[in-house]
C-alpha cells in the first residue's frame, strides 16, 4: 500500500524522501515557486510555495511529505499571502515590465499575472542598483534581483566557478561577483555557463540577442506559468 496525503482534498501518492512540492508536482498539481528548481536542493527563500498543514504554514519545497497530512494550497487565504509576497518582491526592486527585455519570459511577472496581482499595494523602495555591462556577452541588471540564489548555486555547484555570491544583509542584501573590482567582466563567467542561463527574472541577460522573440509571443505570453511549469519540468 503506497503512502498518500491529501492535497486540497485530493489524495496524492508519495515516496519517502519526497517533499510536498515534489509529490504534488508528480501528481500534476502546481504549487507556485520562484527559488525552487527541479535540479537543485530546496532553498526556501522566496516563500511563494507556502502551504498550510494542520493549521501551520510551511514551505512545501522543503517540508517532507508525511502519510495522512492534509495540505491546503490553492485557497483564497494562501493565494492572498502569495500575492502579497509578490508585491513585496516588486516594491523592493525596480521592476518596469514594459521596458524589460525579460517581459514574457519572466517568472516573477508570469506569477503576478497568474495570482491576479493588479497593483503593488506597498510603497516602493526605489533602491539604487547600478547596472554592470562590463562583460562582453552578459549584462547584469541588479534592479530586478529577487535573491533566489539560483545563479549563486548554479555557478558554485554546477559550473564550479563561484562567480556569484550575496553580501550584506536584510533589505541591503545584494549580489556580488567574484572579482575585487566588483565587475562581471573581471570574472571567468562564460555565456554558456548554467549560471548565465538560469535567472528566473531579468538580472542576467545575454547581450545582442534582445527582443529576438517579440513581446506578445514569448513563453508566458502564450501560456500561463501554471501550465508551462508542469510541461517543461521547471
Amino acid at each position, binding site marked *: 500500500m503506497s503512502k498518500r496525503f491529501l492535497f486540497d482534498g485530493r489524495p496524492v501518492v508519495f515516496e519517502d524522501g519526497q517533499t510536498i512540492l515534489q509529490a504534488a508536482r508528480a501528481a500534476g498539481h502546481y504549487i507556485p515557486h520562484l527559488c525552487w528548481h527541479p535540479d537543485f536542493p*530546496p532553498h*526556501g*527563500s*522566496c*516563500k*511563494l510555495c*507556502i502551504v498550510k498543514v494542520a493549521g501551520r*504554514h510551511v*514551505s512545501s519545497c*522543503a517540508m*517532507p511529505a508525511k502519510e495522512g497530512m492534509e495540505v491546503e494550497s490553492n485557497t483564497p487565504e494562501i493565494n492572498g*499571502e502569495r500575492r*502579497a*509576497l509578490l508585491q*513585496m*518582491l516588486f*516594491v*523592493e526592486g525596480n521592476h518596469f515590465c514594459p521596458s524589460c527585455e525579460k517581459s514574457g519570459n519572466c517568472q516573477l511577472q508570469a506569477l503576478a499575472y497568474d495570482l491576479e496581482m493588479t497593483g503593488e*499595494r*506597498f*510603497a516602493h*523602495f526605489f533602491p539604487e542598483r547600478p547596472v554592470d555591462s562590463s562583460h562582453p556577452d552578459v549584462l547584469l541588471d541588479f534592479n530586478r534581483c*529577487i*535573491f533566489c540564489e539560483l545563479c549563486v548555486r548554479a555557478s*558554485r555547484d554546477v559550473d564550479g566557478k*563561484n*562567480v*556569484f*555570491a*550575496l*553580501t*550584506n*544583509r*536584510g*533589505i*541591503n*542584501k545584494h549580489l*556580488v*561577483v*567574484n*572579482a*575585487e573590482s566588483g565587475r562581471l567582466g573581471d570574472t571567468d563567467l562564460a555565456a554558456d555557463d548554467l549560471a548565465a542561463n538560469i535567472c528566473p527574472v531579468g538580472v542576467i541577460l545575454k547581450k545582442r540577442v534582445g527582443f529576438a522573440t517579440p513581446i506578445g509571443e514569448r513563453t508566458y505570453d502564450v501560456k500561463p506559468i501554471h501550465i508551462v511549469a508542469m510541461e517543461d519540468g521547471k
Partner: protein
Amino acid sequence: MTSHEVPAVPIESIVRKHGGDPTRLLQILIDVQESIGWLPPPALTSVAAALSIPRSRVEGVAGFYHFLHKRPVGRFHLQFADNITERMQGSAELMASLCSKLWVEPGRVSEDGLVSVETTSCIGMGDQGPALLVNGMPLTRLSHQRINQIAELVRREAPLSSWPPEFFRVDDNIRRADALLSLEMAPGAALRAAVALGRDGWMEQMQISNLRGRGGAGFTTAVKWMACRDAAAPEKVVVCNADEGEPGTFKDRVLLTRMADVVFEGMTLAAWAVGACRGFVYLRGEYRYLLESLREALSLRRAENLLGRGIQGIAGFDFDIEIHLGAGAYVCGEETALLESLEGKRGTPRIRPPFPVTHGYLGRPTVVNNVETLAKTCLIALGGGEAFAATGTAQSTGTKLLSISGDCAQPGIYEYPFGVPIERVLEDCGASDIQAVQVGGAAGITLASYEFHRRIAFEDVPTAGAFMVFDSSRDLFEVARNFVDFFAHESCGFCTPCRVGTALLKKAMKKLAEGRGAKTDLADIEWIDRLLKNASHCGLGSAAPNPVVDTLLKFRPAYERRLQSLDFEPAFDLDAALAAARRASGRDDPGAHIGAEEAGQNG
C-alpha cells in the same frame, strides 16, 4: 590607507594562525580587522587566496556582520547602544552632543579619519546605560559630563589604555540570588558527581530535573541531549550559545563574568552525557572584552584535567572547548544560524528538519544550549534532579534569571523560582506607576498593567530573561517602533517576508511617527504582521511583529492619536522631495516649503 593599497599586515600569518581553515573565516576576518581597522578590498582578496576559497564567499561573509567594516571607520569607532531603555535615558541626545563636539555626522568618518560614530543594537548593558562600545570596549553610565571627557580624549588621540578605568567599569548588579547565583562550587565538583552516576545515571537525573532551555524556546534539555547521544554519526559537538542578543538581556554576560567555570563545567557535563569530544562557546562580539578572562579560565581547567584528554582519568572522555566570536548579528542567536556562523559562513538560518541534534556543526550531531541552561546542569549534578524539580512550577522547574532594566529603582539581575508573578518582580525592583512591561525582549510579549498578575513560566509568560519596565510617562508607540527598527536592522534578508516585511514595517512606523498616517496604514501594518508571522523562514521573522501586534491591541490610542483623520495619506512627501532644490537654491524660508505656504494662505 586608500582602498587600493595592499595592506602591509601579514594576512597570511593570520590565516596560518587559524590553521588555514575556511571554517574559521569569520574569526580570521575579525583578526584582520583588528590589525588594519577595517577590511579593504585587497585584504578580502588576500584572505580568499590564503584560504583557497572564492573571493565572493569572503565578501559575502564580510558584508553580513555589523561589526565587520567593508568601508573605513575612524581610529576611534564609537557605537551607541540603541535599545529603547538607553533611548529613555537620553542616548540619542548624548550621541548628538558627541557628534557635534567632534564635528562628525553619525554613520560617517571624520575628514581626518580620527573618529566615527554610529548606533548599534543592545550591547547587554541595559542596567548601567546609556552605554557605548569604543573600538569594541563597553563604556557604561554615559552622562553629558562623560561625553565631554570622551570628546576631549578622542581629540587628543589618547590611547584607550589611558582612559579613566571607571569608564569601562561593568557591574554585575545582582539584586536577588537564588540557587544558581548563590552557588559556590569548586571546579570539577559537579563533574565528579555526574561521572560517579555513570553516563546513563547522569542522563536519568537530567530527565528527572525536567530542565528546559533558558534561551527562550523552552525545549526539554534531556530530550535534546538524548537525541544527540542516540544520533548515529560520530564526533559529537556541544555548543554554548553565548550570543545574548535579545534587547534588554544581560544575564549571560553576568554568568560569564562571575561563573564562567560553572558554564564550562555544564558544557563538560553535556559532553559526558552525549559523548561529545568538541565544544564551542559562541560569544557575541559585544562581549569581546570577556574573551581573555574566559580563555584563562579554560587554561586553568585544562591544567586541572577538567578539559582535554582522559578527563578525570576516564579513558575516552576527551573534550575541549574553544571560543568563537560573533560580530554583531542578532540572528546568530538562532541555533542553525549560529552553526552556519561557527562554520565561517553568513549567519543564515538553515532549513529544518534536519535538526542540529542529528545534523549540526559540519553535519555532526550537535547540542546547542544557552549559557544559563548549561550553568543550571551543575545544580542538577550536585543536588540531583528531584531537588532541582522541587522549585518552580511543574512545567517550569528551577529558577530563572531576569535582566531588569527601564523605569525602576534597582535595575540588574534577579533570580526567581519559575512561577513568580510580574507584580512581585515589579515590587522588588522598585518600580511604580507602571503601564507596561516587555518580557522576553523585542521578540517577547508586551504586558499591560491588567496582566501583571501573570507569572514568569513557560506555560504563562515565557522569557529568555529580558524584563523592560515602562512607567506611565512612556509612549508605547515609540517602544514598538524601536523594536521594529531593531528587527529591520537584524533581519538576515534570506526570506522575502522578513527581508521586505521588516523594512516595510519600519517605513510604516516612520510614517505614523511623522504624523502622516491614516487608517489604511494600520490595516497595512496588520497585514504585514500576518505575513511575517505566517511565512517567515525562522523565529526572527515570525517574532518581529510581536511588539506591534501587542501594542496595537493593548495601547491602540498610542497609534490612533498619530493618525490624520483621512482614510488615506500618501507615503510620498512632496515637501521633503523638494529638499534638494532648497539646498541648491540656498533657501529655507517658509515660502520654500509646500505645507507652510498653504498654511499661510489659509490663515
